């Protein structure tokens, strides 16, 4: 055996870590990031002449459980054809035994980075609405994301907002939504693939600060749409304060603090965030649509369900909503008063 230099070992490690795309339509360009299950590479689809992102397991799987998870993620994405959810193009196994799937390559910015550049609360809320639309669509298809956080939201250069990384998504129920051709969407395509990939009760999946309390306790069987609603509330809190929501006791302190605790956010929006993040899920919004509706009402200057107003708040909101009209009337009255005063002289 010849001695292998450090340089040779480094070259072997690099060569071995790169995916073997022989026999595929893809040509590797560069590594763009890592995820819980594998690595994401930028590649060129040589048939269609476009760039794609390849999510590839780091290792071939002996037990094939991670491969099955990756394939399941691709299948979930395949079921979620929505402008706010990254589309999947292809899935399979490489010559080196590693499972992969190809998806749209999203050129843009992560929400946590983008939020630093957007100052206006309404602009941030409009992005939030787009996120809600995508999540509501997934819920309608019976799928929970379970790891919603700013790092998993991408905003493209043309205003598109995409929810990424469905690796720990949970299928709540099989999709029975009829297609346009009135045939049902096949949930799985082969008996092997229909094998359930159930996460054991007690397993904690998600990200601290964005995870619902029941999710943090590992109550996998109890999770429903309200777990994602909690995460959306945490994302909203992040958008209002530009700070990562805290977990555990600190989070509870924030909840019990006055409504203005979420930075300098409007109280009504802070209340929406807090309702979405209620400790008891029964006190959260019943659906993402309800949450999005409250945001829409706020942007429209209407009262929101999460924030009971007193008469002063109502007047202030009314004045804000009709500020242009009020300004015009006031201007008219001032000019009129000035003219009356001038003519009487």
């Amino acid at each position: 055996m010849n001695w292998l230099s450090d340089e040779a070992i480094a070259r072997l490690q690099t060569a071995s870590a790169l995916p073997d795309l022989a026999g595929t339509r893809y040509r590797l360009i560069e590594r763009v990031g890592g995820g819980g299950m594998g690595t994401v590479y930028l590649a060129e689809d040589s048939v269609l002449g476009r760039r794609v992102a390849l999510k590839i397991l780091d290792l071939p799987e002996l037990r094939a459980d991670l491969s099955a998870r990756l394939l399941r993620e691709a299948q979930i994405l395949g079921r979620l054809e929505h402008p706010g959810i990254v589309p999947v193009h292809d899935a399979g196994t490489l010559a080196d035994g590693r499972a992969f799937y190809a998806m749209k390559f999203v050129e843009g910015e992560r929400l946590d980075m983008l939020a630093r550049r957007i100052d206006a609360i309404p602009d941030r809320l409009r992005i939030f609405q787009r996120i809600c639309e995508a999540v509501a669509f997934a819920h309608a298809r019976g799928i929970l994301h379970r790891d919603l956080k700013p790092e998993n939201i991408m905003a493209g250069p043309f205003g598109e907002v995409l929810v990424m990384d469905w690796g720990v998504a949970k299928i709540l129920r099989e999709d029975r939504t009829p297609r346009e051709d009135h045939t049902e969407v096949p949930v799985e395509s082969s008996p092997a693939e229909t094998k359930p990939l159930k996460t054991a009760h007690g397993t904690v999946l998600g990200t601290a600060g964005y995870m619902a309390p029941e999710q943090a306790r590992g109550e996998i069987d109890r999770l429903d749409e309200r777990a994602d609603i909690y995460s959306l509330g945490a994302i909203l809190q992040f958008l209002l304060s530009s700070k990562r929501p805290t977990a555990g006791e600190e989070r509870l302190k924030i909840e019990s603090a006055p409504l203005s605790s979420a930075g300098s956010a409007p109280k009504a929006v802070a209340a929406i965030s807090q309702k979405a993040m209620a400790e008891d899920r029964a006190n959260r919004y019943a659906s993402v649509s309800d949450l999005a509706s409250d945001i829409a009402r706020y942007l429209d200057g209407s009262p929101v369900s999460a924030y009971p107003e007193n008469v002063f708040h109502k007047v202030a909101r009314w004045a804000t909503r009709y500020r242009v009209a009020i300004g015009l009337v006031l201007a008219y009255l001032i000019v009129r008063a000035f003219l009356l005063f001038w003519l009487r002289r």
Partner: protein
Amino acid sequence: MTQDTNIGGASGRFPATHWSAVLAARSDDPAERARALEAIAAAYWKPIYKYVRIRWSKSNEDAKDLTQDFFATLFEKEYLDAFDPAKGRLRTFLRICADRFVANEAKAATRLKRGGGAAHLSLDFDAAETELQRASPHLQLAASPESMDDFLEKEFIRSLFGIAVDKLRSECESRGKQAHFRLFEMYDLESDGGRKTSYTELAKQFQISPTDVTNYLAFARREFRRIALDCLREMTASEDEFRREARALLGVVPA
């Protein structure tokens, strides 16, 4: 290239299945145990020899004896039975065993007596010593436990990659793919003062097309990766342990 040792290596005696030497070392079947212990020794004797030389500042001759005796004792006393994969890496376990063994080296008479009847491994210590001298920067390492852990891991990777390269050569020869291996050797293993030979130059040299160079290299790398991971599987006891070790072996940055 010369064969350093007659244990494991390129002999092709180990099937390319997902057999675990760590688990087989506890087998009730003596033949299975012997096979497992040989595989472990093949992967670890060089790292342990170098470790003893540096960590314990032993002379070449002393380190040879200690390494031989360490593996003989490891097998005789069935120390591996105490290894729990759930509690740590095999590498760390072997390092701790080696430290204890060397610390007790004062019992030289016992060692000499045991050496008479113990299985003697055929190990190419001269090659290991030459490697150690070539890697002279490592000798400057302070013998702190942290740096020695890194050193041992690096040497384990070197040893395992070396075994994988030998197996790849053997497989390529048996399948009539010598050119594939030679290209792999020239492009990925040999250093040419930092200058990388281009695919075009290699194509001319081997009288094949540049596309063939790409394909040959892809084949050799794919096979190398497979063999290296198979070797690593032998040194691990569970899929989770394998994943952790494989990430270190391949230099994959965990997410």
